């Protein structure tokens, strides 16, 4: 298994809330790459490991 990265559960919780905040909306659509990257940035997950592309 690759070494990967370790983050605090507080950050994981913030990521979980933001990433899935629209799942119960009737007009849901998949977030764009830019929107998803912005969420990672906002919760402090920056740097090469957290780049989606």
């Amino acid at each position, binding site marked *: 298994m690759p070494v990967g990265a370790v983050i*605090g559960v507080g950050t994981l919780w913030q990521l979980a809330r933001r990433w899935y905040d629209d799942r119960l909306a*009737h007009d849901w659509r998949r977030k764009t790459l830019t929107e998803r990257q912005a969420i990672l940035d906002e919760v402090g997950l920056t740097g090469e490991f957290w780049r989606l592309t």
Partner: protein
Amino acid sequence: MLGAMATMTPFEADVRLAVYRHFLDHGAAPTPDDLAAEFAVAPMEIDAVLRHLQQIHDAVVMIPGGRYLWMAEPFSALPTSYRAVAVDGRTWYGNCAWDALAVLSVAGTDGTVMSTCPATGRAIGVEVRTGTVTPTDGVAHFAVTASEWWRSIGFT
């Protein structure tokens, strides 16, 4: 992701939302028959919508080669090592620690995410209470870089 920005038909949007409502209410994925009964249509019609929701809208994941739901992220239709238990006793499976926490967020409830340390077998619990998580010194491991998360949906 080709076509992921296409707009869903109203019926596709209804079925997608019904999948989530079913997970929330029953702790399990609906079968195509459940959805067909709910919408008073033929099961084959639901099969086609679910395929469309996966292939065009990236909205659900079907069990490979089958007609049954595997994931409506963050929910897992299959038992996993990441169980989310609401304070009222409702229970769901998430696809990973991230998803199990997200299940509580989507359900809008306090609760506990329960898992097991893969190295020691020790039980692990993370509590969510009024928007905060404990223990605050808990950690989560991401095995692969973000760019690889969807290369194999079952392994992140």
